[in-house]
């Protein structure tokens, strides 16, 4: 869990002032801004107009529910947002936050309940409708067309044209420059989006939302790919927007951000609102408890490491990415048996390519990787696995699992042709099943049967399948890339514990994660990566969050 103690340099946490609004709550003003009769006739508690009350209610959600089959993603949710407020939606992965905002933005339709925007409770049909009603959204996975330029992406859907048909690119460029200036987020209009670093793409995504008239801006996990400094920058932008009258709803699972900028917090758990509180009235522990429903241990208990011989040795590795550009650029690192080395870094600095190269899934341009005496540099995944490398991949849907296959088959995905799971090329199903039953108990994989398809499991359980598979063959080297992404807190604790166990049993563990808290909590040694190489190494005990943040941003 995140470290709630603010260190020097982070925005103030104490006593966040009363939500800022326009201040003018007179009936005249109500008359001017209300869009429907219904809005005009709202009682003061609802409209926010009248004596001593804040401001216009921009968003009013009443008893909203949404289910997907037998899964209740949102249960009877009621919440509201006032003009100029910053409201945080806090909850662990799978709590239903994204589902909720997708309904506000018109991507999904609610089953029951209403979503009222500025008093108008007509259902929101689609994103176009939402945009027309003043809602903007910054998505967790950027909604940008990679091969198009910034200008083209920004004008998509409301193109500047000559005569209504022909594209006016110059007009789009002007719009980009204007927006850049106004919000202090500089971008070059003519660069292709996929040529931009992730932090800049985030800026483009935000500008895209702000290029329309926005009264309410939704941000879905906006800081997932940012360095601590970029995060602070973003939080600053959010406060400025709120001060000028744009309300903000932002989704996060990071307590420190909630405490840093929000005026109010709604805590979601398993699809329902379990708490609503003004930020100044709570703290990290309080929030965490509400999020999980029980006392949460904010960091893991582990013994000191006793590292032995070097198991993995990476020397001067160079690897290219999918676009043929150098991603890993002279990376050197040693990992010993019995220690966890955490690789900290913002996504997009070569971590993914590094792990794929180590697993044998990506070609190495130059440099060397050895596992003990074995040279891994030219090995393929079959060879690396059988040499004793366990790999928990970053993208479990794409690489780690075959959704259509049963849990049992997934548990032998890279051992399917080995005894006892196959003899002479013929598969031995009873052995596969037995193995699955054993692992299911050992790793607490919640499912009704091991023959169930893996695709039907929750994120946490899917990850447990992958973890079970990669740890059960007692690997010499365990590589875990973003091992708890999209996983519920209970499973996170479980997986963290198993990683430490693997270390205690003598494995060398390479942990790659964009979650700094995870790195700080688990690692015995930390290596900070930037621009495809290690820029600093330090002991886990000596790690300073701000220092690492600076290094992650390239400040070295």
């Amino acid at each position: 869990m995140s470290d709630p103690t603010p260190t020097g340099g982070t925005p103030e946490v104490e006593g966040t002032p009363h939500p800022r609004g326009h201040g003018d709550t007179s009936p005249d003003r109500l008359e001017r801004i209300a869009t429907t009769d219904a809005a005009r006739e709202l009682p003061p508690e609802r409209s926010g107009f009248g004596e001593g009350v804040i401001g216009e209610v921009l968003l009013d959600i009443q008893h909203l529910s949404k289910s997907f089959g037998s899964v209740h993603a949102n249960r009877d949710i009621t919440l509201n947002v006032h003009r100029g407020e910053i409201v945080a939606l806090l909850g662990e992965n799978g709590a239903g936050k994204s589902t909720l905002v997708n309904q506000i933005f018109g991507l999904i339709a609610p089953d029951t309940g209403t979503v009222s925007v500025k008093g108008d409770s007509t259902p929101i049909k689609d994103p176009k409708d939402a945009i027309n009603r003043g809602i903007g959204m910054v998505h967790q996975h950027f909604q940008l067309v990679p091969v198009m330029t910034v200008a083209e992406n920004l004008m998509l859907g409301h193109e500047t044209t000559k005569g209504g048909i022909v594209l006016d690119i110059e007009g789009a460029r002007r719009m980009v420059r204007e927006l850049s200036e106004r919000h202090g987020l500089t971008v070059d209009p003519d660069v292709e989006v996929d040529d931009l670093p992730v932090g800049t793409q985030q800026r483009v995504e935000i500008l895209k939302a702000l290029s329309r008239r926005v009264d309410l801006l939704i941000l879905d996990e906006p800081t997932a790919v940012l360095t601590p400094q970029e995060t602070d920058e973003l939080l600053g932008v959010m406060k400025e927007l709120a001060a000028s009258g744009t309300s903000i709803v932002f989704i996060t699972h990071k307590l420190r951000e909630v405490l840093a900028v929000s005026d109010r917090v709604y805590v979601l758990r398993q699809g329902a609102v379990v708490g609503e509180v003004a930020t100044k009235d709570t703290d990290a522990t309080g929030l965490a408890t509400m999020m999980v429903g029980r006392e949460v241990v904010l960091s893991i208990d582990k013994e000191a490491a006793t590292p032995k011989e070097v198991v993995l040795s990476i020397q001067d590795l160079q690897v290219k990415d999918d676009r043929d550009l150098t991603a890993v650029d002279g990376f050197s690192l040693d990992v010993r048996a019995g220690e966890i080395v955490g690789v900290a870094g913002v996504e997009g600095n070569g971590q993914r390519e590094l792990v794929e190269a180590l697993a044998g899934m990506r070609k190495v341009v130059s440099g060397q990787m050895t596992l003990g005496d074995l040279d891994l540099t030219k090995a393929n995944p079959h060879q690396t696995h059988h040499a004793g490398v366990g790999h928990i991949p970053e993208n479990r849907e794409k690489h780690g699992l075959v959704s259509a296959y049963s849990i049992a088959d997934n548990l032998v995905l890279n051992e399917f042709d080995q005894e006892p799971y196959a003899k002479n090329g013929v598969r031995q199903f009873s052995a596969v099943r037995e193995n699955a039953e054993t692992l299911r108990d050992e790793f607490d994989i919640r499912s009704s049967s091991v023959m169930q398809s893996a695709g039907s499991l929750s994120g946490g359980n899917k990850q447990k399948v992958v973890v079970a598979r990669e740890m059960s063959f007692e690997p010499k080297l365990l590589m875990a890339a973003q091992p708890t992404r999209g996983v519920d807190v209970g499973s996170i604790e479980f997986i963290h514990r198993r990683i430490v166990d693997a270390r205690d049993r003598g494995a060398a563990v390479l942990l790659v994660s964009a979650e700094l808290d995870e790195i700080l909590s688990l690692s015995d040694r930390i290596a900070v990566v930037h621009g495809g190489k290690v820029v600093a190494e330090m002991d886990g005990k000596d790690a300073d969050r701000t220092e690492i943040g600076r290094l992650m941003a390239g400040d070295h």
Partner: protein
Amino acid sequence: MSDTTTEKAAPPPAGEEPPEEQQSRGGALAYLIAHQSAVVIVVALVIALLIGAVLIRAQGVNPWYAYETLIQEALFYPGAFTRTLQKTAPLVLTGLAVVLPLRVGLFNIGGQGQFAMGAAMGAWVAYLAGGAGFLGAVLGMVAGIVFGGLVGLLVGVLKAYRGVHEVISTIMLNYIVAGVTFWLVVGPLQAERSKTSGIPQTEPIPESARLGAVAGIPIGFVIAVALAVLCWWMLARTTMGFRFNTVGANKSAAGYAGVSINRIVILSLVFGAGLAGLGGALEAEGTLHRFEPAIVGTLGFDGITIALLARANPLATIPAAFLVGVLRTGAAGLQFSTGIAPEIVDLLLAIILLMVSIPVLGKWIFRSRADKVSVASTSWGS
């Protein structure tokens, strides 16, 4: 699909989070839903036959009489059943030729060319080796597999190493092989008799190397059925089959799991094309006893229809091929009795395929949610 058949998911127990969005792009292999699709296929067949009845009536013929004649001609007249099985045999193989690569996510629509190649070389080798009796027939079959497989090898290599989409390369090869085999049969492989008669064909295969029938069941049919079973067993029970299915279900995960994707792509196309080639050799040895360009007829394309009807299941190619065999065999007699052109079968099959393929039929019957129902998803841009 392995025999660890997947069950429907039970709802997660209370207190669990919802399942994640599945990224089932390129992974919806609907042969999972065994019992469901059987019902869909039967209903589709009925609807198609009804539509066919309407069209036949429009030709001025009583549709029930037409259907009855078809079935009589195909199954009940003396020798008809054997002829129908004779026709079914190559169809099973051209169907398998599409099914195997389909399980890997590849679309092999080059059955025509692969079949022709196998037929030409098979006929020629059987002729050359005819003196050795049944061994000659076997050698002919081997030649069919090998030369058909070579065509598949070219397709596979172009796909794996040059990214050439197999839909395009197999169609191009259909025309190329047609040209090559035609040249062969008016050139080096031409029969003496053919030079004077003007009909392009190869020397007839000696009696001893021909494939006959045992108790009314053509040997070719037995071989075809055996291969269908073998393909099913391979896909369901062996590690090679697991590799095939995994590449078809999730290519990235297959790579992660250590499967050599290029090798599987090439193998599936070689196997598939080899099976089509074998079909050609069997047809040359068993039915025509020589090679001539017209031997291919519609057998290659029917294979595509059969594979889709069979929902990419090797065992199901047998009844699907039988259906097509019945229709094709019966059509000749149908024309004789009613004057309806034998192309009616093309039309009927097209309607059947249409009804079976449209996902909405399955949805309408089961009122289930719109899921991506497809036989197997194929990859275009990758």
